[in-house]
């Protein structure tokens, strides 16, 4: 069964995702078309899925 999740890796280079952060400094990948939830703000992006992950990895270390 093929189910699609907006948090699954995509091979696309297009800017599909954001990186959100909350007041605790926790980060969340986020799909662009979905409204950003309260208490979170975009910190990076829109950028490709891979670029967003690279950002989180480099900032999170």
């Amino acid at each position, binding site marked *: *069964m*093929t*189910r*699609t*999740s*907006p*948090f*699954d890796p995509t091979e696309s280079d297009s800017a*599909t995702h954001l*990186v*959100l952060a*909350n*007041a*605790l400094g*926790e*980060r*969340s*990948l*986020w*799909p*662009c*078309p*979905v*409204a*950003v*939830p*309260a*208490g*979170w703000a975009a910190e990076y992006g829109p950028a490709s899925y891979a670029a967003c*992950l*690279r950002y*989180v*990895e480099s*900032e*999170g*270390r």
Partner: protein
Amino acid sequence: MTTAPAAVPEVRSLPLTAAQSGMWYAQRLDPDSPAQNTAECLEIRGPLAPVLFAEALHRTVGETDALRVRIEETPDGPRQFAIDIEPPGHGFPLHAADLRDQGDPSAVAYAWMRDDLARPLDLATGPLFRHALFQVGDAHWLWYQRVHHIVLDGFGYALVARRAAEVYRALAAGGDPGPSPFGRLGALVTEDAAYRASEACDADRAHWRAAVADRPEVPGLAGRTALPQRTFLRQTARIDTGLTGRIEELAGEVRATWPEVLMATQALYVSRATGSFGVVLGVPMMGRMGSAALRIPGMVMNVVPLRLHVTPATTFAELTRQVVLGIRAARRHQRYRYEDIRRDLGLLGEGRALVGPLVNVMPFDYGPDFAGAPTEAHNLSAGPVEDLTVNVYDRGDGAGLRIDHDGNPALYGQTELAAHQERFLELLGRIADSDPHLPLAAHSLPTAAERTAVVEEFNRTARPLPPTTLIGPIEAQAARTPDAPALVDGGQTLSYAQLDGRANRLARYLVSRGVGPGTVVALALPRSAGLVVALLAVLKAGGAYLPLDPDYPAQRLRYMTEDAAPVCAVTDVPGRLPDTGLPQIALEGLDLSGHPGLTPPRALTPQHPAYVIYTSGSTGKPKGVVVPHAAIDNRLRWMQDAYPLGAGDRVLQKTPSGFDVSVWEFFWPLREGATLVLAAPGGHKDPAYLARLIREQAVTTCHFVPSMLQVFLAEPDAARCTGLRRVFCSGEALARETAQEFARLLPDVPLHNLYGPTEAAVDVTYHACRPGDAGPVPIGRPVWNTRLYVLDPALAPCPPGIAGELYLAGGQLATGYLGRPALTATRFVADLYGPPGTRMYRTGDLARWTADGEIEYLGRTDHQVKLRGLRIELGEIEAALAADPAVSAACALVREDRPGDQRLVGYVTAADGQDPDPEALRRRLATALPDHMVPGAFVVLDGFPLSPNGKLDRAALPVPESTAGEGRVPRSHQEETLARLFAEVLGLPSVGVDDAFFDLGGTSLLAARLVTRVRAALGTDLTIGTVFQAPTPAALATALGAGDGGADDALGVLLPLRAHGDRTPLFVLHPAGGISWCYSGLLARLGPRQPVHGLQARGLARDEELPTTMEEMAADYAAQIRRVQPDGPYRLLGWSVGGVLAHTVAVLLQEAGARVELLALLDAYPSDQWRDQAVPDETDALTALLRMAGFERGGELTRADVLATLQREGSALAGLSGRTLSAAVDIVINNARLMRAHDHRVFDGDVLFFTAAAPRAEDWLTPGAWQPYVRGTLQRHDIDCLHPQMTQAPHLDTIAARLAARLEELNG
């Protein structure tokens, strides 16, 4: 409208159109089915002359070739033959009735219609239509027409109805209706046949092939498929003129038609309900391309696939554009049959759908005007329903649209259909009212009421709790009940004060080594009181514990310790972990007397991590989940509220500490004043042991992974565990059958199904099983301070009944993955529905809400699997396989080729010039992965099967071949029966008598099934343990049959466990009891090329003098070995006394000039170590014999008692006669005596030594005692088990893997 019908001469018989053929074959599958009846009811409000009406109908039928046929099979295939239709009053199929005197005339009429619609039409006789005219009011008529779909499609219906009205009008006006406007059926058939032979058809075929080759799967809204039934369910609603107007407005705005807007809406609905961006709708089309066909009533309609890509970022305008372009393209190729597209794709089998739901928009301007009387048409049946069909009618009557949701009753209930319709209409309304240029992410499926239920009502779990930690309540409890029993470990009981004191002393020591809040401490201890002390000590010191299973391969242990960077590791004995530079603190010999037994001060908060547990990772490396105190504290407080534990409760601890179920097992009882009962290391896999322990230790509370529960319930003693007060299941889906079997065997014990990932502090949902319930066992409702969301791919909530991905939110979420910020950010994501700034965890589990707020687990959304409750990322196994230089690509899969039996299979393709050897792959993986992740079978493929779109087609991977069914023929009735039962249980065509159960894919689950069948077939008592010990039909027959005094070669001095094979034989020497069957587990593990011969004591098979010295016995065995293998090099292995014998035989062989290339000793110690020990008396020997059979001695006093137990309870020894067992007791005593008197000489070579490393009473035994008698090196391997467990899984796996590696080196 003046074309003469005679332009094409009428033929008496015609072939069928392609569309008709499809229906013909469908009807032939079920000749009595009324499913292909189509029916309409036309409501006529006005004066009507029934006689003229009948005449008009008759004339119209006379003009309609298609209606005047019967269809019969001929040698040239089915053909339609013209038949005569009698005039009204003389057999014309028109039922007329005046119902005005009935109470509810319309109801009576509709009841008649429903009844008529349920009757099949006989294709072979015809006529294939029927009319009825009911007068239900003075100026109110109902015209019912039923037609077999094989002769008329929807377009044909409209042609016929319009013509009938036209004829009626003419007759009513006293005029001539004029010549028929219809073309001849022959022309339609000819055109259809011509099309199929044309280049246009070839071009259409190519078009559809290209269009749908890489189509997505189309799961359907019910998540499964079924054949169409004889009936369908229908839910009808109207789209009022207001909404219809808004839809038309929207259509204009996006340059489309209103039917295209409806299709786009349905595509959005399907995309969200199936969780797939790819949607394929079925769209019925007229199938008429030329002007001629447009004038001919008949059956040529077709269904074509409409592929759409619906992502959350797509706008409604874009989606509608896709529909417009898709319909435009499809229309050009609409004559190519749906059945042919499926056939071209190889989809003709059941269950492989080409399209999802159908959207059938019928904007036919019906316009039948019966001399001025207004009419309104109602469809009663539109034909068979495969899945779900949405029929939309615009009768052009100004009354808005009618919408029917028709469902296959095998897939949908009436309430589900109604819910789908209500949601669809609400969605349509919201779409009509919103900006079509916004992303579709703004839309969701649930109605407002459903949304409130799934987001709010089902998640009302808020519960204020004090800010405590995992350890705090345990310390408080210890202060409250210092003298209460806290822990039972074998014969040892610790009070709360003792446990607390020991833990405090160690904690203070750990603090001195740098442990504190925020640090991690690795723990590598077998299950023991020491482990519990260490767990508490780490927490008391403020640290988080990291459990390490010392059985894991060194590579993995090294990875975990480097990844988690603990401050230090606590172990039971020195050298437990590979040396990585990490400080290791061994409890053995550690002097803590300088540290006070008082709680150490610490600055611990509920946000600090309590533990780090590693789970399998999809990218090839396991990942550490960091769980804070607040999360697990919430979990344990909820559990105590839901299932209150009291001081009298005794909780079994049997889950290995590396799995998070162990967390509540360890800590819950200690927080509540109950007693923790520890199972022996390895004991969690032995159902007989567990049943005994539960009874003997009066356990009230325990946990099983469902597959282990199934095995446990197959244990005869399970039903006697009536002291249990509650049993928990989690870790994998609990089958209803298992829950029912539990209720049958233990009717008074509640069974609770829990669910949760390590990432949310063990469990987040709970459900109490009730004996009367049916269907899948839900995972239940959320625990305290926990919210569950079932979300679609746009992160919108799914309504009840609709599957989506399960997300978890609330107080139990883990902090994240240790040192993996990116992974954490993709799994712990912003919560759309919770308090601002909070997170939700994406489980990857597929689930749905029930209407009353419970969650049903439906499977995984990815390739993560669970095997016997253990979480496995196939990606991790694939990465390990692909790392093998002989492998170019790899895939791992859990197969379930037999229902309920899952096994892990590795598939590989060879690297250039390489030839991967399955045995070598297995050994390689065993060095990198834990046992439960090493595939049971490996398949080397030339290439991987690919789906049409070039992706790996996992479903097409072959079933692993087995070599079963060859070899020796059964030599007895028992062997024959057993071979048959093996084959049945394993689902194989046949099984050879020497084929080992576990080699052929057997699992403990299947073994339980086998045991039941053998009991039934042979009336013999046996346990799963017997199957482990004697895994082939032959061996099992021997084990079962020896007691009957049959062929006793299983008790001979030389026992060929596997006589054949091209490798140098391995000789295995019996332990104290003289029987070598215990080594049979080696067979499967060493592979079919390795012969194995057992040496057994004299005196078992018949009365014989027992040897008087070890030397004499060894010389006898050496001679026996030489009979099998006259010349060296020799390979010897022995367990226990067998090791002493193996050493002695090896020395004798060397002294005789032979080469001995392998001497493997399993927990055997030289004579010196025993010399000062008392020779066992009969009592000791009886205890030893019981242990060999897997029992601890209970109330058996005499030899007769013990023999009775052995024979009654069943074991590998159960089938032995009293004489044989009695002889075994003598042999045990004799061997002990001879061993103490023996003097070892020196063996010239290396020794492979396996220590049973779990703590034991005989702590003076040490392998080092062999040093004087071994010239080479003693290579030691510690196995975490007790001496009697060495030849059992999983310990034997480890031993056999090391042994196989050595044998492989020797083979060269």
